[in-house]
């Protein structure tokens, strides 16, 4: 491998040796210190081999001695490539200009990626970077890398740690958000426990206070579930209890029998797309409506260059009206109504049961899904003084 690379850099010629004993010439070359490699037989009395250009000149003087004829069949390697380019100067200069442009572009930040933002807005990190003089297009050497993370923390809110790394032309900002301290429990202020929504009491276990409802009872929002006023001495306490209620959520959705689908017509166009530093250029499309499959053939970011070359296959599509099957119609209606019902359910609730009913209309189906949950429906309500 290393030898092949060395020969490619130095340049070599592939020669064809013809004669009664072509190996004799190869032997003479070896004896005269001419390096020969890749010797292959191409039939009786014919050999091919690779020698350096200098070696080839030396070989010519040995031809007669070996009674062989020698001719060049191929020239390979860097010197020959450069010699070929000398005849096409614009191609050479174009290549040099492209390399220079890539070198200059690779010295700047072309992409900023922020990760770890769950509750905070990425825009405030980008804005903080902008205030520190770091934007897309900023020269990498102009970025004061040390302590940048700490300076960004001072310019942002709700972040505990920021790590900044530069990978090629990409600036990676890793963010760790602050964890807010838990809310302090108020054990002192006297309070009742009231219902937060309409529900049926599934279970009630009182630690402090007096229960005002029983299991199986339906309650309305704001209704007192556990009183904080003790009946025997009139003392006011903060009521505490575990109360679970059954709550019903309803979702309704209509799905039409008729729908439109995009189908491929069979016409295909292949195109190249080049993206350099966020700007994209692609061959114009032959079709008005099409979908695309894109394959990245050369990703410059792997070599820290802000360039990507992609190959696109464009499939022409057209819209056609189709009638849905009954089974699919009901499934779509059920899924849509279930989605609407569950969108109202709080995250800590547990789904206990689901039931869907359907109504057939002239052009479609209406699905009504009722989702039953078990959840905490209690909230503290301070008892007014007096």
């Amino acid at each position, binding site marked *: 491998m290393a030898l092949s690379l060395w020969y490619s850099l130095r340049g070599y010629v592939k020669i064809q040796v013809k004669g009664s004993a072509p190996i004799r010439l190869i032997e003479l070359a*070896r004896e005269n210190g001419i*390096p*020969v490699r890749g*010797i*292959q*037989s191409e039939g*009786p009395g014919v050999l091919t081999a690779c020698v350096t250009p200098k070696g080839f000149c030396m070989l010519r003087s040995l031809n007669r001695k070996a009674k062989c004829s020698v001719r060049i069949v191929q020239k390979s390697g860097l010197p020959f490539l450069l010699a070929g380019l000398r005849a096409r100067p614009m191609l050479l200069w174009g290549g040099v200009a492209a390399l220079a442009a890539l070198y200059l572009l690779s010295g700047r930040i072309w992409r900023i990626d922020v990760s770890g933002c769950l509750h905070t807005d990425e825009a405030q990190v980008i804005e903080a970077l902008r205030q520190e003089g770091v934007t897309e297009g900023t020269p990498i050497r102009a970025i004061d890398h040390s302590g940048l993370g700490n300076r960004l923390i001072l310019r942002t809110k709700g972040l505990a740690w920021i790590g900044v790394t530069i990978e090629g032309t990409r600036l990676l900002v890793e963010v760790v958000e602050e964890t807010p301290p838990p809310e302090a429990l108020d054990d002192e202020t006297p309070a009742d426990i009231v219902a937060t929504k309409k529900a049926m009491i599934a279970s009630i276990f009182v630690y402090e206070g007096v229960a005002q409802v029983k299991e199986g009872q339906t309650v309305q929002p704001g209704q007192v579930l556990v009183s904080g006023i003790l009946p025997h001495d009139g003392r006011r306490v903060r009521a505490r209890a575990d109360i679970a209620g059954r709550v019903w959520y309803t979702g309704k959705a209509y799905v039409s029998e008729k729908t439109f689908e995009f189908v491929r017509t069979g016409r295909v166009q292949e195109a190249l797309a080049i993206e350099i530093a966020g700007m994209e250029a692609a061959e114009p499309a032959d079709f008005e409506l099409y979908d695309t499959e894109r394959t990245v053939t050369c990703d410059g970011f792997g070599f820290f260059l802000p360039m990507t070359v992609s190959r696109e296959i464009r499939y022409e599509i057209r819209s056609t009206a189709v009638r849905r099957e009954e089974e699919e119609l009901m499934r779509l209606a059920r899924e849509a109504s279930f989605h609407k019902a569950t969108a109202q359910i709080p995250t800590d609730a547990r789904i206990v049961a689901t039931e869907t009913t359907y109504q057939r209309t002239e052009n479609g189906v209406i699905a009504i899904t009722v989702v039953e949950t078990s959840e905490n429906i209690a909230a503290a309500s301070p008892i007014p003084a007096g």
Partner: protein
Amino acid sequence: MKAARKSEKPIRRGLTEALDLPADVLLDEPTVSVEGKRRLTVDNHKGVEEFDGEKLTVKTSIGALRVSGSSLVLEDLGCGSLLLTGTIRSIEWM
């Protein structure tokens, strides 16, 4: 002169065996290395006598070495060392 050289060989061989020295250093004998069926190296050879895609004959100080096979390529032919690739079927001393 030749007779003198021949008389040196038993001494050199004895010295080589006694001191456990490599034979190619003192006796000028070839070293043949084979990697699987596809790669053969001969060090300390005296030249190629015959070569085509199916056989190679190499001169050495202890006789000719014949290698038979198919798709044989002399990848490198340097002073005293050669590298042969291809499918090697047999190696014999002649």
